Structures are given as structure tokens and as C-alpha cells.
């Protein structure tokens, strides 16, 4: 209904003129009037007026006016309009009958997009969350996925790197359903499977399909959930021009409170004293706040201009968008230009054609954060370097060169130099075209064919100049260029048959789909440049060209799919889907897979005993079960393969081969078996609606490294894969929407959602613990989290911190690391050996939140509206690697660490002495509660009154002032509780499933104050 009303808003109600055609001499009588909606009071065009018990009827015109002739004054007029409660009015002597129809939310005839079709919302049997366009555009976001955070129950959205401009966004629907494969949902834009998310202003509606009944139509790609995006289309009527312009000022919400130069010298002297060094720390003369140097205020500008409109036969929508974000960290920014155009043409009564076009160019200048430690001692991470670097050092030496090396600990580069001198540019081009034809073959039977093509080109260039002494000084600069190109071709054809059968409605869908994706990669790297001026554009001028690499892979998927929807008497609903996917990357013996699902719905509120209920306006029960897959097998991964070796032999180099892996003809995709129980409730004419969903997802055949293959087979491949794992996710989701107050001038509504998810590792290879590491490599750990049967995914693994050793006898059950003295940390001595060894490690924290939630309150008073959106997460732990580094003595530290440290006179503390004997150990000392509540957005908007702007030829003019992340309530001591760090060797695609809750040098989430203008002509 929202869409239609918005459309109508453009019109203004003229005064109604009443005309009497005659007196009541004749029993025949003419009645006129206007039909408007409640609460908005807008005219309803096309409303039906029927004289009860006759075939006589009329419809309202565009302005909601009608005229009808009745035979006598006893006649009863029935006013009805889809989505509104019908009203009966006896004519009597009245000649003018104005009617206000109340929205009938119990009908909820909102149209919801589902895979390969649409359904009335009231007929949906699966678990689907719809996110409204207003919610997506409540504040400017780079990626529409970000706008999903806190808006849909069971959908967790997180940036990979806090507030970094252009950082990738992770979406997880209903928990982690994989270990090695991606847990990200499938994105479908206007029917294009696996598309890039369009820009949020261009989105008309966004649906999140969560249960198997909804996603199984996407078969082997459905198990992580599906996000269906529909972009805006032109509407018949006059051409409308819309301008959206936003400007935001941003700053970091938080800095770590570090020691200044004098305190730092004190700190170092205490460390020296504790270590028996008698000489004093040679304090420098400067007092530099490195955090101040690397942070600045940032800004975001987002401008969009769109045109839309159409005639009876052709509709169009076209938009251009410019987005630019200057990060709060110096030298980090992102810029993007996007174009989108949708054209739909009605060629004949039976044939419709359409074309969607999308193009974008994004340029990201990245600053080095979240070091994985591959550069010596993590010397490439601006954020932690700024915390580590000695504050008594100046930015520059007297000769103008950067100070270098830090005065304590490993030699690292100057943080400001790393921030400003390192070049890391990523350019991404996206292009997509999708053509469709829709043909009504006979009545009730429609054929649709789509043909689409999309390509993504990405070039990333990195240059490390020789001025970064530690990183690239010795090799006189290092440059690399990487190019990735991915091209997808998609062809889909399907038939839809709709038939009314008595009280039943039947919809059948059958289709065929073919998709082919080709990915190419090229990488080259060189060192030794005579000048830094080349950046990464002068590889040929390098003295040392490193071995280049190139690769190509191709994946084809062909599928057949079908769906039956049957509803009977508007009470009983049945949905059954099936998809058969064949994929080239599937192994020899498992080329095809079947993914069925079925769901039943019962609209209890349509039954006679509830039909008349004043209280309960909607009650629907849903139950569904189905199987979906995760393709999870890379191209060529199941084939027998040779590894090529570049070998030193016979007085020179040769390229040689050796068996890398055996054919794995039985390797299968991962499969999720999902049960969903749902209850939709509406009270008081749906002023209060409540949706409850319970789910249980068993993901089987997880692909893990098969440790059971013996080494004497002689394969060099480390990762011989097999389907051997299982994970279970169960959860409960609540979505509550209430319209608390709806007056003519004032309204208040509340949307609340909360989701509880509990996951459990059910089985692993031989059910043995799987250990991983998500710490920087220079921390020199190889285990920091574990997958253990019976536990949640990704529990932290380390020593259990038991406070500070006070000297004398060790408290029972504890011990220190080797050489512990009073003031050193104590750990639980699990094996009672008296020493802290490998055997004393255990699970020390759980990063999985108990629940996540979002609550939005919308108020409107006359032309003003206010929106307040809180979002939060409860119960997940964070491993604060940043503090582990800052507690190590070989760097600056926090005031808190320093002033609370154990000394012989300050023994009642939980912080060990400075310069203690631990060495960035993984222990519960650095595990913190990561729960938070965040005022994600607060906005106040003003719609200029029509009277004021009408004369300017403006249909709509709106100003909004908003602020994001203004307030965060958390006990977490780091920069921000929304963390995502994967450690050495980790990456977004795979580690994101299991490496959770680690914080190291994350780009901080930013506070933003935002001014927006929306003008519509």
C-alpha cells in the first residue's frame, strides 16, 4: 500500500463540488461523494461502490469522486477498496456521501517479491522480511547492505573494517552455516542472480528470504538466505525528477587514552627497573599524539538525480549517483559513480519487454589497517602503530625525514609515514545489463525469458615507497598490480500459470536457467625502483621483477525449477518448490542435486470463529521444511590435479609437475536442512502486528580438510577435502510493529525486532578439535580459536587468566609462565604440572552474541517527522588483540594499563606489573564483553507544505538532519565493539565464518552528522 499512497501523494485534493440533479420526487436518486483513506485522508481512485444486492456499481475517479444512481432510499451502498475495510452506508435521504475507508491491515495485500514471481504478503508461507525503502534511505550508506543492519530480524550485518570508506560488508542470515565456504547470502537484483547490490536510493523494495520454503527455489545457492532487490521503475504519468543530496561530517567516536611523553618515559623506566636494567630510558624532547596526527574529520557527500515517468506503453526510470567519502583516517577515501536505468515497454497486450542497465566505477584509496603481521612486527598498520609509537618522538627528524624505528620494541615505520606515503588504490567497475520479455501465451499462462550479462573488473595497485624504511627501504620500493575480471552470463526462462479453481487459487511455475561465470586473475609484483614517482605504474623500471601469476576459472550452472502455490478459501496455503541444479564445479559423481521444499500456512483469522473478532485481525500459522545448498566447491577443486613446481635442477631452473591431489569424484556441496515454524499475528485492525519465527537449520556435508588421507599417497596438496562436518543453528525471531498513535496531526509508530541464534558444531573430521589462529603473525601464535564438537563456532582458545601473582606460594591450581615473579600474570594450571604449557589452554570466551536487536520509533507531527533507531548486540565476547599488544611493554600503553599495574605497593589490582613475563599471550585477560546498544540513527525531517512549494513547481521538498552512531553504550574498552579481524592468512570469504570477535587495528566506526535534501519535481 505504501507505494501506491506515495504515488497519490503527488496529487492534491481539489474541493469537491456537489451537484444535485433533481429532487426526491422520483424514488430514483443520484448520490455523489468522495472516498478517502484513513489515516492519511488521501483520495482513493478506483474504489468500488456497489448497490448491495444488485449489479449496479460505480468506481471513483482519479480524485476519489464518484457518482451513482440508486433506485430508492433504502438502498445500501458498499464501498470497497483493496486493502481497506469495506463499509456499508444506507442512502436514506442523503445525496452526498463522503466515505473514509480504514486501511485493512488484515488483508495485507502488499505484494512481496519472491524468487521468480510475487505473492500477496498474506499468502506467504515462508519466513520473509521486507525492508522498506524509507528504512534503506534513512541515512546515507555506501552499500545498501549496511542499511539492513538492525532492520530485519535474524540478519546480521557487519563491516569488515569498521568505518573504512569502501570496506566490504558481511551479511549473515540466521548464523554461520559453513566453515570453509561462504556464509554470505545470495543477492538477486531484478531477477539477476548473484548481482552487485545497487545503490540504496534506487531500491524500491528489498526482501530477505530466510527459510528453506522461500530460498529452495534458488537450490544450491540458497542455504545462506537470499536477498531479493527490486529497483525502481517508472510509473505512468508525468515525468518526475527527483534530487537527493546529502552531506555528512564525520569524526571518530573514540580514541584510546594513551600515555604522553613524560608518562611514557616513566613507564619505560619502570619496565627497565623491573627487568634489572639500571640505565634510564633516554627520553626524547617531543610530545607527539600520534592518534591526533592520523585522524581527521571526514565527510560524505551523496548526490542523486533521477528521472522517471512513462506513457501507457513505455515506462522508464533513470538515475545517476555520485558518492564520495573522505575517511577519518588520513589518506583513506572512496569515490563512486553509479548509473541505473530501467525501461519497460508494452509492445502489445500480450508482450512486454524490458531492459535494466547498471554501471558503476568505484575508487578506493585504502589506508593500511588491520595488519595481518606479514610486514615485520606488524609495521604496516596505521591504527595500532599510532598507539604503539613512542610519544616522545617527533614526526620528523631535523633534516625533514620521518623519524623511524620506534624507541622500544621491534623497529617499525612511523605511523604517519605509513598513513600518508603508502599507496593502495582499488578501482572497481561494474556493469550489468538484463533484458526480459514477458508474453501472455493464453489467459492464465505467461512466459518470461530473461537474458543478462554482468561484468566486474577490479584493479588493485599497491606501492610501498622506500621512505617506509622497515617495510620497503631495503628493497627500494615494492609495487604490485592485481587485476580480477569476472563475467557472468545468465539466461532464464519460465512459465507461470495461474488459475482460480472454485474456492482455490493455483499458481504453477516451471523454468530453466543457465548461468556461466568466468573469472580471470593477473598478478605481478616488483621491487627495486630508482624513484618513488612511478607509484605502481612503472613495473618495468624495477630492478627485480618477481614471478607473475595468472589464472582463469569457469563455472557453469544449469537448473530446472518449479513451484506450486495453492490456496483454498483464503484459509489454507500450500507452497512446494523444487530445484534441480547441475554445476560444473560439482564433482564427477555428484553433478546434479535436488533441492525440495514444502510449506503450509493456515490463516486462522479467516475461519468463521475469528472472522468477526475485534481484537485479532490476523492470525496465521506457517510451517516449512526444505533443503538448500551451498556450492562450496571451488572450480576444479574435485579434479585430479598436478602441481607445477618451479624447480632448481640440472644446473638451471625447470618447470616440473607432481601429483597435487587425487580426483574427488564424490565431493558434494554443503546442504542445509531447515525447519521453520512461524506465527503472524495482528491485533486491533492490525495496529499491532507480531511475527514470530522459530528455525532449526542442520547444515551437513560441510567440506573440511580430510586429515584421514595418509601422506604416503604422495600428494602435495595440503587441503584434501571431504564432506565431513555438520553445524546446527537454531533460533527465534520476533518482529513487532505497532502504530501507537495515529491522529491527523500526530502519529507514533514503533518497529522492533530481535533475534536469538544458537549454533553448535555437531561433527568434524574424527570429531577432533579444529584449531585456527586469528592473531597477527608477529604475535607468533598458532592457536587462538577452536571449533569443537558440541560447542558454538569459534570459541577463543588460550590460558585462563587468574589475576596477578603476589609472590610466595602459588595459589592452588595456578601457575605463572616460565620465570614468573611477583606482579606477573597467573594462569589456571589445568593439568596441574606446575608450569603453564600447551596443556593449560582451554576455551576462554564465546564471540557469538546471544541476541541482536533493532528498534525504531517514528514520530510525525504535522510536517515534521522524527526517527530514532537503536541497534544492538548482547552477549558476544571480543578478544582485544590491540590491548594485548599495548600491554606488552615494547610500545606505548594505555593510561589504564599503566596506572592500574601491579607494584609492590599497589597489589590489589588485576593488571600485572609493567614489563611482566607474558608475551602477547592468548589469555582470558584480554577477553571482554562486546555487548552494545547503539543509537544508530536519529533523524528529524521536515516536508515543506504543498502551499509553499506548489508555486515553485515542486511536488515535494524535504529536509532532513540526522546523526549516526551518536551514542554507543558498551563496556568494551577498545575503539569500537563492532569488530572483524581475521588475523594472518585470514580473509573475508572463509575466515568470516569462524574467526569472530577479534579486534586488532580495526578502522573505527565513525560518528556522522548529516544534512539531506530531497526535491521532487
Amino acid at each position, binding site marked *: 500500500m505504501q507505494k501506491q499512497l506515495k504515488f497519490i501523494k503527488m496529487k492534491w485534493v481539489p474541493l469537491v463540488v456537489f451537484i444535485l440533479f433533481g429532487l426526491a420526487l422520483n424514488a430514483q436518486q443520484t448520490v455523489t461523494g468522495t472516498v478517502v483513506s484513513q489515516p492519511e485522508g488521501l483520495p482513493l481512485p478506483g474504489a468500488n461502490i456497489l448497490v448491495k444486492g444488485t449489479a449496479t456499481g460505480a468506481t471513483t475517479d482519479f480524485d476519489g469522486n464518484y457518482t451513482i444512481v440508486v433506485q430508492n432510499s433504502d438502498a445500501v451502498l458498499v464501498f470497497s477498496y483493496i486493502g481497506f475495510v469495506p463499509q456499508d452506508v444506507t442512502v436514506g435521504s442523503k445525496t452526498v456521501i463522503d466515505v473514509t475507508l480504514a486501511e485493512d491491515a488484515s488483508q495485507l495485500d502488499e505484494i512481496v517479491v519472491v524468487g521468480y514471481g510475487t505473492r500477496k504478503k498474506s499468502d506467504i508461507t515462508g519466513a520473509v522480511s521486507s525492508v522498506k525503502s524509507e528504512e534503506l534511505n534513512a541515512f546515507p550508506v555506501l552499500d545498501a547492505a549496511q542499511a539492513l543492519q538492525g532492520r530485519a530480524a535474524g540478519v546480521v550485518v557487519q563491516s569488515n573494517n569498521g568505518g573504512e570508506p569502501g570496506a566490504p560488508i558481511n551479511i549473515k542470515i540466521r548464523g554461520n552455516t559453513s566453515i570453509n565456504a561462504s556464509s554470505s547470502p545470495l543477492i538477486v537484483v531484478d531477477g539477476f542472480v548473484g548481482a552487485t547490490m545497487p545503490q540504496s536510493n534506487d531500491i524500491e523494495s528489498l526482501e530477505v528470504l530466510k527459510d528453506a520454503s522461500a530460498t529452495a527455489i534458488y537450490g544450491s545457492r540458497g542455504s545462506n538466505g537470499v536477498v531479493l532487490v527490486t529497483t525502481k521503475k517508472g510509473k505512468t504519468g508525468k515525468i518526475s525528477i527527483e534530487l537527493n543530496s546529502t552531506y555528512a561530517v564525520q569524526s571518530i567516536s573514540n580514541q584510546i587514552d594513551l600515555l604522553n611523553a613524560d608518562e611514557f618515559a616513566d613507564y619505560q623506566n619502570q619496565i627497565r627497573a623491573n627487568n634489572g636494567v639500571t640505565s634510564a630510558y633516554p627520553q626524547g624532547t617531543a610530545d607527539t599524539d600520534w592518534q591526533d596526527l592520523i585522524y581527521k574529520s571526514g565527510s560524505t557527500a551523496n548526490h542523486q538525480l533521477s528521472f522517471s515517468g512513462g506513457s501507457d506503453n513505455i515506462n522508464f526510470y533513470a538515475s545517476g549517483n555520485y558518492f564520495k567519502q573522505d575517511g577519518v583516517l588520513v589518506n583513506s577515501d572512496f569515490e563512486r559513480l553509479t548509473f541505473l536505468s530501467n525501461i519497460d515497454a508494452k509492445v502489445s497486450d500480450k508482450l512486454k519487454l524490458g531492459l535494466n542497465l547498471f554501471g558503476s566505477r568505484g575508487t578506493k584509496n585504502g589506508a593500511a589497517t588491520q595488519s595481518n603481521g606479514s610486514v615485520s612486527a606488524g609495521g604496516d598498520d596505521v591504527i595500532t602503530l599510532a598507539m604503539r609509537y613512542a610519544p616522545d618522538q617527533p614526526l620528523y627528524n631535523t633534516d625533514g625525514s620521518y623519524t623511524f624505528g620506534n624507541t622500544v620494541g621491534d623497529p617499525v615505520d612511523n605511523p604517519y609515514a605509513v598513513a600518508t606515503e603508502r599507496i593502495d588504490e582499488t578501482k572497481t567497475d561494474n556493469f550489468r545489463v538484463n533484458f526480459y520479455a514477458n508474453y501472455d501465451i493464453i489467459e492464465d499462462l505467461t512466459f518470461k525469458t530473461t537474458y543478462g550479462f554482468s561484468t566486474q573488473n577490479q584493479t588493485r595497485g599497491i606501492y610501498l615507497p622506500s621512505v617506509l624504511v622497515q617495510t620497503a627501504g631495503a628493497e627500494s620500493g615494492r609495487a604490485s598490480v592485481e587485476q580480477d575480471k569476472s563475467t557472468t552470463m545468465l539466461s532464464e526462462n519460465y512459465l507461470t500459470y495461474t488459475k482460480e479453481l472454485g474456492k482455490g487459487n493455483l499458481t504453477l511455475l516451471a523454468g530453466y536457467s543457465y548461468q556461466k561465470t568466468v573469472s580471470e586473475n593477473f598478478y605481478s609484483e616488483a621491487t627495486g625502483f630508482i624513484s618513488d614517482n612511478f607509484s605502481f605504474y612503472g613495473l618495468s623500471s624495477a630492478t627485480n621483477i618477481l614471478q607473475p601469476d595468472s589464472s582463469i576459472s569457469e563455472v557453469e550452472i544449469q537448473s530446472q525449477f518449479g513451484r506450486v502455490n495453492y490456496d483454498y478459501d483464503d484459509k489454507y496455503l500450500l507452497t512446494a518448490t523444487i530445484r534441480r541444479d547441475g554445476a560444473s564445479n560439482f564433482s564427477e559423481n555428484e553433478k546434479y542435486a535436488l533441492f525440495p521444499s514444502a510449506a503450509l500456512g493456515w490463516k486462522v483469522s479467516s475461519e468463521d470463529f475469528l472472522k468477526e473478532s475485534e481484537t485479532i485481525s490476523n492470525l496465521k500459522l506457517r510451517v516449512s521444511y526444505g533443503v538448500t545448498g551451498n556450492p562450496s566447491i571451488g572450480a576444479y577443486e574435485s579434479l585430479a590435479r598436478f602441481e607445477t613446481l618451479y624447480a632448481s635442477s640440472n644446473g638451471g631452473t625447470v618447470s616440473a609437475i607432481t*601429483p597435487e591431489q587425487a580426483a574427488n569424484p564424490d565431493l558434494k556441496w554443503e546442504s542445509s536442512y531447515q525447519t521453520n515454524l512461524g506465527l503472524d499475528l495482528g491485533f486491533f485492525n492490525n495496529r499491532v502486528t507480531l511475527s514470530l519465527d522459530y528455525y532449526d537449520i542442520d547444515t551437513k556435508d560441510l567440506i573440511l580438510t580430510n586429515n584421514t588421507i595418509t601422506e604416503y599417497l*604422495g600428494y602435495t596438496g595440503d587441503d584434501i577435502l571431504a564432506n565431513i562436518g555438520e553445524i546446527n543453528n537454531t533460533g527465534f525471531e520476533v518482529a513487532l510493529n505497532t502504530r501507537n498513535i495515529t491522529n491527523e496531526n500526530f502519529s507514533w509508530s514503533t518497529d522492533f525486532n530481535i533475534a536469538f541464534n544458537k549454533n553448535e558444531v555437531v561433527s568434524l573430521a574424527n570429531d577432533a578439535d579444529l584449531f585456527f589462529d586469528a592473531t597477527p603473525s608477529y604475535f607468533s601464535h598458532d592457536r587462538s580459536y577452536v571449533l569443537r564438537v558440541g560447542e558454538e563456532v569459534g570459541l577463543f582458545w588460550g590460558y585462563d587468566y587468574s589475576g596477578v601473582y603476589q609472590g610466595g606460594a602459588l595459589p592452588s591450581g595456578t601457575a605463572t609462565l616460565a620465570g614468573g615473579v611477583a606482579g606477573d600474570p597467573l594462569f589456571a594450571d589445568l593439568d596441574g604440572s606446575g608450569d603453564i604449557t600447551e596443556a593449560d589452554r582451554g576455551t576462554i570466551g564465546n564471540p557469538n552474541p546471544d541476541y541482536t536487536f533493532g528498534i525504531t520509533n517514528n514520530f510525525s507531527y504535522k510536517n515534521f517527522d522524527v526517527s530514532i533507531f537503536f541497534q544492538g548486540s548482547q552477549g558476544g565476547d571480543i578478544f582485544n588483540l590491540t590491548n594485548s599488544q599495548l600491554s606488552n611493554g615494547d610500545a606505548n600503553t594505555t593510561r589504564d594499563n599503566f596506572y592500574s599495574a601491579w607494584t609492590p605497593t599497589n597489589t590489589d589490582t588485576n593488571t600485572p606489573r609493567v614489563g611482566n613475563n607474558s608475551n602477547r599471550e592468548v589469555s582470558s585477560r584480554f577477553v571482554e564483553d562486546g555487548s552494545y546498544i547503539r543509537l544508530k540513527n536519529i533523524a528529524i525531517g521536515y516536508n515543506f507544505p504543498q502551499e509553499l512549494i506548489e508555486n515553485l513547481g515542486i511536488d515535494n521538498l524535504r529536509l532532513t538532519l540526522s546523526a549516526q552512531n551518536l551514542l554507543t553504550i558498551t563496556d568494551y574498552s577498545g575503539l569500537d565493539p563492532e569488530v572483524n579481524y581475521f588475523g594472518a592468512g585470514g580473509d573475508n570469504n572463509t575466515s568470516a565464518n569462524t574467526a569472530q570477535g577479534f579486534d586488532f587495528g580495526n578502522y573505527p566506526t565513525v560518528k556522522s552528522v548529516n544534512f539531506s535534501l530531497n526535491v521532487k519535481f
Partner: protein
Amino acid sequence: MKSYKILLLLIGVSVFGCSDLEEEPVGLLSPEGFFQTTGDIQTAVDGSLTHAINEMFWGRKLSVALMLRSDMVALASNETRRVEMDEFTTLASNGMISEFWPKTYQGIAAANQAIAGAEDVGVADEIKNPVTAQAYFARAFYYFHLVRLFGDVPYIDAPITDVDAATSMSRTPASEVYANIISDLEFAKAWLPNTVTSRAIPSKAAASSYLALVYLTMEEWQLAYDESTEVINNAGTYNLALESNFQNLFDASVIDASLEPIFALDYNNFEADDNAYDQIAPMTGIRGDVRNSGGGWSIAVPSLEVYTTWDAGDYRRAVSLDDTAKFDDDNDPETPDVEYPYTQFDVSAHEFAKNVPYIAKYTRFPEPFARANARATSHNYSMIRYAEVLLIAAESAVELGNNASALNYVNQVRARARMGGETMTGASVAVTVAPSTVPADLTGTVTVADVLEERRLELAFEGKRWYDIVRRQLGGVAFGTSGLEGAKSNFSSTDYLLPLPEDELERNPNLLPQNPGY
């Protein structure tokens, strides 16, 4: 009707995407259809032999393990896996075994692939067999190490077709493994050429010499004698001879031209994929030594007795051990480096520095090398060289009672050791050692002990000594109180075999029982 035509056209456009879904990778190699030419066989052979130069095999793990287990090299390190090797406290989880076990089998798998692939190459045997024969040689080379290290081992001689079956196979008795090694070497000998362009390429002489060594190990004295003397008698044909200057065998800059190596692993001063490079020089080198961009790491260090019991006049001692070295003892690059005798090598102040002469064979002339501490050198490590063939002939002659032959062969080796030659001390002082009288020719009756002693000195630190101790069961003496390293109390006869890696036994319980004593 026009619409129908458009529709048909659209269907036509859409349906072209029909596929059999077969994967045809480009840029990745799969066994299917790979082998077309003899060149493809050679590529797999190269793959097989490349595994031997890997750090997990001869580059460090196996070569150092063989040194430490012998009585010629002690340990200056507290790293568990090395201590276990040196002290005979080896566990089935040992971190060196877990490296060279898979690497050896990777060499075998590549050789199996080459041999099976040759079947697909449609050319005459005369053309392809000389190439395939290298794979037979490589397979025998790897299994010969395995059977001597572990005894009964899983024996695989074809590419895996059934992973499950192969994963549950049992160990093959050592005698059967030996029979297979012999048949592989026979094939290799039959087809390999007399001479090759590089001694890193298997030749007929290599196959024949290895056969002799295998027979010697099996105590098939007559066969060992026949095979070794066949090599010696064909030395001209095979282009083999003793190198006149013993030092040249360990000088990376001249070794390529030497006629003495029969089969060698050839390193070319770079780190190839997957750590395929050598680290023997730093492992045996002196801490703080100014040579080799940072000296050595002082890990595999002989006991002092190795030096003191070696005749000072034997030129081979001067080549094999460094008893002087130069150190930058004041950390000041401006002042000259100072020469120290081995009694003061702990001037480096390193916790594991030893005041004994260090192994010199690999640290003296490794140049050029790619990485500091003389890693990734240009050495050619002889796996078998002509001097050893002479000693095989001598030893089997002794066993056969042919004293005249034994004298002839062993004295050829001793004569070369007397010749002296140009060399350099550990302090980088060039010296020319004049011909001397030691070691004098043996006279009278040569004993087995005489030949073994000759092998110990001639082939010192070349990975031969441990295998000699095993095949002659010398442990009781070598590791007794009179041994070079003093009494090694943990030694027992079960130490002649290593344990199979414990995780392999877990993966395949059919490999049980573990070797006794573990």
C-alpha cells in the same frame, strides 16, 4: 503473429546455454591427457627429483637427521626433534620424520606418474624408455632411503586410483621392497644412457652404482662386487674418475666439471617453490663466523674426537673440518676481523657455540648463494660418487676373500687423499697442501673394518655413515664408551629403524604394529 516470432527468437537466444558441465581447466594441469610426448614424461621426472632438493628432504631435514644419528656429528641445539635424533630418544611424533616421510613419498608419486604416463605416450620404447628409466631410478632412490630408514613400508608403484584402498593398505616387507628397488634399477640400467649432460640426471652409471650399493646393503657380496666392478671397468665409457683435488668435490664453483659425482642433487642458488633449497651450510656452520653473510647457526657439530682421531696429515681432514675461523669480535665493522683457533670459537658468545672444529665441506665454497648464512647455495651434493663405488668394490671383495682387489680399490681412494691440493682454511687463508704420506697404502689383509673406516672418513658428513652403522650393526661400539661421541646410553638395537609417523598410523591402523622400541 509477429510477437510469436520475437518470442521464438528469444527462446532461441536463451537456450544456447546447454552444457555437459564437464570442467576443462585452463592453466591447471590434470593427469588426464597430459602425457603426449617424452618431454611430458621428463616433466614428471623433474618433478620427482625436485622433491629431493627440498628442505624437507636433502635440503635439511633428512640430511641433518642422518648426520645427527651417526657417530660423526653431535648436536648443538636444544630443539626437541633434533635432540630426539641425536640422543636416540626419537618419538613417532618426531618433527623431522614428519617432514621427510611425506616428501619422500611425493617424489615416489611423481615418479609413478611419469611411469604410468609413459604408457600413454605413443612412441617407440627406444625413444621413451631412456626418459622413463629416470623415473624408475628416482623411485628406487626414494624407496632405498625409506627401506633403510623404516624397514617395512607401504609400497606404491602406480598412481593412486582408489584412495580408500591405498589409505588402508598394509606395509610391504622390506625384502619385497628391496626386490622392487632392484627391478627398478635394472630397468633404469638397461635404458639409461652411458653419459649425461649433468650428473643430476640419472645415467646408466648411476643406476649401476646404486645397484651395487643396494646389493652391498643386502649383503649380496658377489652381486655387489660384480656391479661395482662393472662401473669401475667401464669408467671410461661412463666418463668417471676420481677428482684429483678432494676439495673440488665441495667447491660449488668447480663441481659441475668434476667426473667423480655419479648422481648428485644440484642446487642453483635460489629458493624454488615450496622451500626447495638447501640449508646444510648454515646448519653446520660456525656461529659468528664472518663468512657467508652472517656465519652459520652451529647446530650439527662433530665431537672433538672426530678431529683428534683423524690423522692430521690426511688432506681430507683439512677439507672436511674447519679448525680456524675469523670473527668480528668487537662488533665494529671498521676494525679487522680476527682469526681464532677452534679452542676459542665461543668468542661468538652464542649459547650453543662449541670449541671444536666444525664441518667445512659445505661452508667453505658455497658461492653463489641466494640467502644469507649460505642458504640456497650452488652445491652439488653427491648421492653417490666414484670413490664410494671403489669402496663398495673393496668391501665386497673383502667379503669374497679377494684381498688383492680389495687392496687395489681401497688404496686408490687413499692415494687420492695423499695428493693434497689447493684449499682454504676456515679463516679464509688460501693454502696449498703438499702431497703427503698419509694415509699410507694399506698392505697385507684388508678387513671389513678397514673399509668401513675408510668410508667413514672419505664420506664424512655426506649422509652415508648412519646407513653403514645400520647395515653393519655398528651401534654397540659406535655409541659405546669408546665411541666418538662417548657413551650414548639411550641407544639400543631397535634404534636401527625409525618409527613410522604416528599420525600415519592413526590414519591407517593397518600400518600397525609400529616398529619395535617406539
